[in-house]
């Protein structure tokens, strides 16, 4: 990596206030670092206070700084058993790379290492031409995908963590990762002790994995009379009920035909009013139409919850020993800050502006190739093969992304 980036990082860290590096229960956490150009993680470090951490960072100026989601008796021990796991924050990672968005067609490319085939947009799991899974990607972010990621954060919190899991506003923190997405750290004591299996259940819950509507009260009483939950019910029970109602309400005949047998679709469509009324009744009935069964309802339910399930990287949630980015540290692949987001004003949060760490100065760079990017209020691109003078933050961003070089 370029010395100039490292120097700027060092300058940033020297000017940082110690309290900005504060993390709850710091002495029980493991710290880890990745140096510029380094491939091996420096691990098992312990810092008892922000000032010793700052001293270390300024001296070594790493490209990435992490701390463990876990709390340990001896975070500095190299052996997991010796470390003595005491618990861990419950973490949700929302990464725009994992979410299909339309803007990806504009700024992302992929190509198959094996046969060279390639294209724009979200990468396929395996090459459509040769079937191999060695796909190389060149991905960027933009306001749109970061907005989608932000919406996911709001969904997880407002729809799941707060109402269903009872997480209080004081028990979680939201961070912009400094690059492609957001992290939610739930720190309440009640979730600290969750095992990996328990964390998996939590991840599956917000992702709607393995949902079975029979467990939520949908069943057939007598022949062809379906009963089920009330839209006012809590948890997934009420959520499925509301989603189904909304979906049927908005669905065209074609929509329904894509899900259930044409006869059933037509029947349901023609009797929509009556069907919706019976769901609203107390107690709710879920229909008694010809040809329509619990299975048809199940198919519609699965289609209707598609937008309600959360796009998280479940591996992060399941892992009870994850390393996560340290607050206010710089992301070595963007030069942006990992920034705490005030949840009450998250709607107005503009990550590409507020996470800018370098507010002054400019830099002369040679840009190989980049799509349109915005950092702070500066916009650039699409651009190819050009040398120019840009504001420092934008320049460092492009250099960190590997798209430009200092000149």
């Amino acid at each position, binding site marked *: 990596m370029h010395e100039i980036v490292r120097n700027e990082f060092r300058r940033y860290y020297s000017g940082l206030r110690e309290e900005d590096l504060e993390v709850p229960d710091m002495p029980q956490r493991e710290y880890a670092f990745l140096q510029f150009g380094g491939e091996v993680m420096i691990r098992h470090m312990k810092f008892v206070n922000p000032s010793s951490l700052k001293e270390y960072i300024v001296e070594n100026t790493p490209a990435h700084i992490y701390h463990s989601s876990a709390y340990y008796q001896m975070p500095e021990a190299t052996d997991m058993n010796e470390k003595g796991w005491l618990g861990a924050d419950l973490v949700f990672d929302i990464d725009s790379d994992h979410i299909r968005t339309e803007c990806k067609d504009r700024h992302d490319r992929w190509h198959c290492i094996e046969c060279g085939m390639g294209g724009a947009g979200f990468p396929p799991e395996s090459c459509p031409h040769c079937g191999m899974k060695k796909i190389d990607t060149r991905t960027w972010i933009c306001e749109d995908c970061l907005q989608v990621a932000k919406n996911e954060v709001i969904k997880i919190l407002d729809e799941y963590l707060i109402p269903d899991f*009872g997480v209080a506003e004081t028990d979680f923190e939201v961070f912009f990762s400094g690059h492609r997405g957001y992290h939610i750290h739930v720190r309440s004591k*009640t979730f600290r002790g969750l095992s990996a299996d328990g964390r998996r259940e939590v991840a599956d*819950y917000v992702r709607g*994995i393995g949902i079975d509507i029979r467990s939520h009260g949908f069943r057939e009483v007598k022949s062809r009379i379906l009963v089920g939950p009330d839209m006012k*019910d809590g948890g997934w*029970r009420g959520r499925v009920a509301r989603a189904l109602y909304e979906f049927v309400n908005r669905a065209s005949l074609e929509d329904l035909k894509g899900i259930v047998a044409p006869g059933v679709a037509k029947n349901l469509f023609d009797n929509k009013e009556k069907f919706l009324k019976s769901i609203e009744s107390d107690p709710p009935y879920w229909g008694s139409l010809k040809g329509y069964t619990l299975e048809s309802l199940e198919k519609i339910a699965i289609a209707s919850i598609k937008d309600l399930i959360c796009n998280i990287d479940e591996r992060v949630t399941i892992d009870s020993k994850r390393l996560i980015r340290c607050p206010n540290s710089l992301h070595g692949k963007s030069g942006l800050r990992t920034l705490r987001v005030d949840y009450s004003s998250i709607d107005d949060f503009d990550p590409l502006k507020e996470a800018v760490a370098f507010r002054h100065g400019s830099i002369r760079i040679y840009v190989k190739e980049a799509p349109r990017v915005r950092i702070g209020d500066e916009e650039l691109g699409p651009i190819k093969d050009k040398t120019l003078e840009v504001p420092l933050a934008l320049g460092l961003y492009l250099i960190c992304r590997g798209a430009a070089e200092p000149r």
Partner: protein
Amino acid sequence: MSLMLTKEDLAKYPFLKQTTSYVERMQLNLGDLAAVEYSGILRKALTRIKDSIERNVRLTDLTDPESEIISYPLALALVYGSKSNWLLNRFATIEAKRVEEELRKEPRDKILEIAKSGFSWEIENANLKLEWEEFPFSIPLQSYLEVATSFNDAHWKLVNRYVKGGFVFLNSGSLTRLVSEGFKIRIIKRASERELHKFRIPEALIPYLDEILMHAQENMRFDEELPQGLVSEARPPCIVAIMEDVKFGKSLTHMARFALTTFMVNVGESVDDVLKLFGNVADFDEGKARYQIEHIAGMIGSRTKYKPPKCDVLRSFGLCIGMDEFCRNAKHPLNYYKRKLKIMSGPGGQTGARDRKE
């Protein structure tokens, strides 16, 4: 609200705080229990263990509650002293089944009382009445997950529960299952505590322990031993799919590779056979692969043989591709495999359909 728990209750539910303190107050010494005056208790303890070896679920013997109460810690000591995981699992399972049977007969209030006394769960009388259903109890999410993750059925998944405000709402049947499973887990977990590693049975009880171990040995043989080698027809869909990928030379994700390797090793394939299987894969490095497989097979390194991931895990990684009839009850691909094997070798099934290679 506190109900009086009788001596009979203490005999039925060994995990209650009251039961533990009752036993402690008697200040018995394990070695003493081999003496003639306690022969009744020893006999009861041995019967409990024998029942679990033979898979007999029997209700609590209440003719003499006191000796029944004391027979439990004695039986448990013998089981721990045997150092046999097989026996430990059997014992815990059968004791949990007995508790479940007993709890089913109890009124709601008492189930609640028992659950609270037995575990440090903050269960509450929620009395939630829904349109077609009632949930009398609520339990904190994390307490629920401590136990429920060990169940197979889909309706125990958190996503299939009524979850609100940090609580999971339950009916009596579910709470009963949760309590008995919690009891089972506790028995098994304690065995791995450090102090128990050092635990030795008193001299006077050793002859009984030997007797138990012999009896266990005889029964263990009947347990389904996996055949030495893969029976293709019994493979679960997820493994079939990964093997297809391998056949076409697609490269595998780390998880897919791990699942396949552990599966093969666990059904008794040799390291060489597993290696041959990977021969097709594009990014194949034999030396590295051999090391990994031997590690997984427990031949080097930690020496524990790795098991394939549970269905839940495979599902989260997108490797679970199908729900055939066996998948429905399977929690684990090996489970699926065992069950299918059993059916295949049962009446009308194809016996010995081994898939040994040339």
